[in-house]
């Protein structure tokens, strides 16, 4: 019994670790998309900030400096997206694709030229990474049966970014639903001309939404390179930005369901790693590739309206042209 319990807790634990970058990224995407701008570029922003975090953390030896660099670089990429899509009314999908591709090449190129480790950056040293934090009283509470394991294994021992991701959810939900900024974001994604009529600049609002997105993607990228892993590698985001986008759509562009989507996808990932080569009673071996494909298949089914219906913000993807 206790063995199974520990296995379950460990599974939940790795779900949390895997969900963290998805949560940051999905919440990031939520702000841009609710403001009416498509953001395919989550992947690129995450990868770019993973590079920036690793580069700065390995030079300065400070994880916080790495995080700051990640946020700054990610916001810069978001501003390029805004310049193309908001100022010049370019195609939002094309712009996102362009940024993703550019960053996928830029990271390894700069890493190779500056660090000479074949496109990698190794981040070593105690303060250059976000290391696990032991919550207080683990030893005492660990003695308690069942709940003690939960506290020690599941709640304690994560790095600070995991806890920040958990905080990011209520904070984002509050900003989106309880602040004037959030109300305007939602309005500008549904009916930009109404917002314009009220004397609020649609463009400025969308730029600000993109900045929020950039900052949150910065956390996701920093988590990849200086918390979860010890350095930057080419393509290390490995589609997580698209997965987060899928979770966002899966959650119908709302914070809590989107994060639940992230947890579901992360759980599939964690379970997949444990099920490798294990025969499930009655079913036999499940191909790990099938489990890997499940998040994408679920999103397609949802988009097709076979399981629920995902309705996007009304004005998404359309550049706003002020009438003159």
């Amino acid at each position: 019994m206790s063995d199974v319990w520990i296995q379950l807790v460990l599974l939940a634990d790795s779900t949390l670790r895997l969900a963290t970058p998805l949560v940051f990224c999905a919440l990031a995407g939520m702000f841009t998309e609710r403001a009416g701008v498509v953001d395919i570029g989550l992947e690129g922003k995450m990868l770019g900030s993973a590079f920036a975090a690793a580069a700065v953390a390995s030079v300065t030896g400070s994880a916080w400096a790495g995080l700051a660099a990640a946020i700054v670089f990610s916001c810069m990429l978001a501003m390029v997206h805004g310049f193309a899509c908001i100022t010049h009314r370019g195609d939002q999908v094309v712009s996102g694709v362009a940024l993703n591709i550019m960053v996928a090449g830029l990271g390894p190129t700069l890493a190779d030229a500056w660090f000479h480790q074949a496109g990698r950056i190794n981040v070593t040293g105690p303060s250059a990474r976000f290391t696990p934090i032991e919550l207080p009283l683990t030893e005492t509470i660990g003695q308690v049966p069942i709940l003690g394991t939960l506290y020690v294994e599941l709640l304690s021992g994560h790095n600070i970014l995991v806890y920040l991701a958990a905080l990011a959810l209520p904070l984002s939900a509050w900003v989106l639903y309880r602040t004037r900024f959030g109300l305007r974001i939602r309005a500008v994604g549904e009916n930009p001309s109404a917002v314009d009529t009220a004397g609020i600049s649609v463009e400025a609002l969308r730029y600000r939404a993109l900045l929020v997105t950039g900052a949150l993607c910065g956390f996701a990228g920093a988590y990849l390179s200086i918390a979860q892993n010890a350095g930057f590698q080419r393509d290390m985001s490995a589609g997580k930005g698209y997965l987060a986008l899928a979770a966002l759509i899966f959650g119908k562009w709302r914070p809590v369901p989107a994060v639940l989507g992230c947890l579901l996808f992360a759980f599939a990932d964690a379970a997949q790693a444990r099920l490798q080569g294990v025969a499930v009673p009655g079913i036999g071996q499940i191909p790990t590739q099938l489990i890997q494909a499940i998040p994408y298949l679920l999103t397609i089914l949802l988009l097709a309206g076979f399981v629920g219906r995902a309705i996007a913000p009304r004005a998404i993807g359309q550049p706003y042209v002020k009438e003159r």
Partner: protein
Amino acid sequence: MRGKLPVWVNVGLLPLLNLSLAFLVSGLIVVLLGENPLEAVRLLVYGAFGYGEALGYTLYYATNFIFTGLAVAIAFHAGLFNIGGEGQAMLGGLGVGLVGIFLGHWPWPISIPLAILAAMAFGGMWGLIPGWLQAVRGSHTVITTIMLNFVAGALMTYLMVNVLIKPGQASPESVTFAESVWLPQLGPLLGLGRSPFNAATIVALLACVAVWLFVWKTRLGYELRVVGKSEPAAVYGGISPRRQIIIAMTLSGALAGMMALNEILGAQHRLILGFTAGYGFVGIAVALMGRNHPVGIVLAALLFGALYQGGSELAFDMPAINRDMVVVIQGLVILFCGALEHMLRGPLEALFARRTEAVGQAQAQTA
């Protein structure tokens, strides 16, 4: 008042200006890396065109990009964005691979056309799914094609690791096909050395002609463009947008799938994982640069073929630059030629409007 741009500006000057901007930024990055950008250009051009084998490689890469560029373009004409070229090419490879593995020993006049059909059918099917979903269920192709890329990747990995792997082999590769089904190499014939330049290039050029005929000379192609320009107009004109969307995405997938002919049947001669190597995404850049016209696509594909081939030579000669620099340039080209195309268009339109106005006034004065 803003005038319309003359054709030569729209299809010639504007893409060239945008391309120059992309190259300018790339040059700045090269400077940032501590190398001389002009020297880099010289090495790149020599590496892409300087000798027979290099040219062969350039044409070989360009062939991939013609297929994926046409795929993106035909979807664009119907107002759709197909980011799924990567997955569709993978499935095309599966079709080609199945013919190669199981029917490769058949006489080539049967097996090679079968392989071409299989590439089109499998790739087309992977385009049909998002097409149908868009047309009937209203799910946006941008998202569904991205998702289907990942599904295709998982499917291919499963098949290669568990089913199609050569027995006793550690890495996921199929058996080598019988030689009769290999596409003929054109390199030795044309004095282009031992490059993988092969007959798939001819198929690619034929596909260009076919796409041109289809889009501009057939009724179906006309209807496709009407749907792309305005769905309400299409409905008013008695055209079913649903049917056109499904047709466009299927053809788009079929064209992307044909990329596998060049890679699998022309060069690898066995099915491997990861042979698409991002070429599906290059197709987006190629279509944007080539203004979705077959002639433009061939030129843009040549440019990107040269960048890929010259770029790997450049990485060899300049230690500070690696192959990924080409990917950066590709991203910048998509950014400037695609997302930022209005940036220069507006000022240019204003400029030409003023010019025509001035000419008009001058004529009025002399009269």
